[in-house]
C-alpha cells in the first residue's frame, strides 16, 4: 500500500465514522425524551456532520480522483465504507444511544487529542477544531451515562443491557492493522495501544460512578474499519441516506 493509499483509507475511517454516527444521532430529532435532550442531540449530530465534511473533503483531495465529500458519502456502497461497527449499530432506546455515544466519544477524544500533533497540518487543523466539539460531547454523554446508570432501577438495567450489547464493538476501535501502522510510522496516527489504556482508565471511572459492570469478555467484533464485513444495518441506512442521489443521478440540490 502506498502512503497516499493508506492516508486515503485512514481519512475515510475518520470521516465515515463521524458520518454514520452523525446520521444515527440525527434520527432522534423530534423524538427524544425531553426537549433539552432533543436539542443537545442535534448539536452533537451537527458537529459530527461538520467533521465529516472536513475529513471526507480532505480524503477526496488526497485521493485526487475529483470526488467531493458528498460523492464519497452518497455514492459508495457498503463494502467501501470504513466506519467502525459501533457507530452503525441502530439507536435502540435512549440508553443504547447514549452509551454508544459515550464509548465513541471516549475513543474519539483520545484519538483527536493525538491527531492535533499529526505531522500533517491539514489533519492537525481539523483535529484541533473537532477536539473542542468532542470534549463537550464526552462531557455530556459521560454525565448522562452516569446519571442514568445511577438513576432508577429501570434506567440502571437499561444501561447495563446496552453496555452488554455494545461492549463487543469496543475492541475494533483499538485494533491496529496495516493502515494504522503505516499512519503511525509516518507520524500521523498515534499508537492505538496507548489510547486503549487511557480509554480504559476513563471508561472504568465512568462505569464505576454509573454503578455499571463492565462485561468481562474481551471478544471484539471486527470488519467495519477495514470494510471487510459490516453489519446488515449499514446497508439499510445507506438506502435512506443515498436515496436522492441514487434516484436522480447528476441532479444538483
Amino acid at each position, binding site marked *: 500500500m502506498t502512503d497516499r493509499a493508506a492516508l486515503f483509507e485512514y481519512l475515510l475511517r475518520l470521516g465515515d465514522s463521524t458520518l454514520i454516527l452523525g446520521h444515527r444521532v440525527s434520527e432522534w430529532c423530534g423524538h427524544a425524551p425531553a426537549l433539552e435532550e432533543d*436539542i*443537545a442531540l442535534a448539536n452533537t449530530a451537527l458537529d459530527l456532520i461538520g467533521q465529516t465534511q472536513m475529513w471526507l473533503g480532505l480524503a477526496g483531495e488526497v485521493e485526487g480522483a475529483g470526488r467531493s465529500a458528498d460523492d464519497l458519502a452518497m455514492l459508495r456502497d457498503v463494502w467501501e465504507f470504513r466506519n467502525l461497527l459501533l457507530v452503525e449499530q441502530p439507536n435502540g432506546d435512549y440508553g443504547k444511544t447514549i452509551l454508544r455515544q459515550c464509548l465513541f466519544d471516549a475513543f474519539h477524544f483520545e484519538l483527536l487529542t493525538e491527531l492535533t500533533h499529526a505531522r500533517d497540518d491539514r489533519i492537525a487543523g481539523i483535529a484541533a477544531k473537532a477536539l473542542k466539539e468532542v470534549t463537550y460531547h464526552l462531557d*455530556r454523554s459521560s454525565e448522562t451515562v452516569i446519571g442514568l446508570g445511577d438513576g432508577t432501577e429501570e434506567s440502571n438495567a437499561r444501561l447495563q443491557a446496552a453496555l452488554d450489547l455494545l461492549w463487543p464493538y469496543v475492541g475494533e476501535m483499538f485494533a491496529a492493522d496495516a493502515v494504522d501502522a503505516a499512519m503511525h510510522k509516518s507520524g500521523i496516527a498515534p499508537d492505538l495501544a496507548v489510547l486503549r489504556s487511557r480509554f480504559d482508565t476513563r471508561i472504568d471511572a465512568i462505569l464505576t460512578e454509573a454503578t455499571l459492570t463492565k462485561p468481562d469478555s474481551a471478544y471484539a467484533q471486527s470488519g467495519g474499519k477495514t470494510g471487510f464485513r459490516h453489519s446488515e444495518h449499514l446497508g439499510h441506512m445507506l438506502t435512506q441516506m443515498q436515496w436522492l442521489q441514487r434516484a436522480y443521478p447528476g441532479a444538483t440540490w
Partner: protein
Amino acid sequence: MKHEWPLWEVFIRGQHGLNHRHVGSLHAPDAEHALRNARDVYTRRNEGVSIWVVEARHITASSPSDKGPLYEPSESKVYRHPTFFDIPDEAGHM
C-alpha cells in the same frame, strides 16, 4: 413516580464583556445538567461566553406594587445620565 424536572432561569454574558443577561428558561434535573442544557439551547448561535443558571424557585422578584417606590426615585435623578450635562462642542469629545 412522576416529577417534572425543575425550571431554571438562564443568564448569559455575550461576547462583548457586558453583564449577564436573562435569556430564558429551561428544565433540567440538576444544576450541572442545567448548565449543559443552557449551552445547547441558548448558545446555538455563538451567543455567549459565560452562563449562569439559577433554579427559578430561588429567585425573589419584586412585586409590581413596589414599582413606584423602587424605581421612581431614580427617575428624578436625571444628573446620573450623561445627556443631562450640556457641554459646548468646543470642549471636544467627552
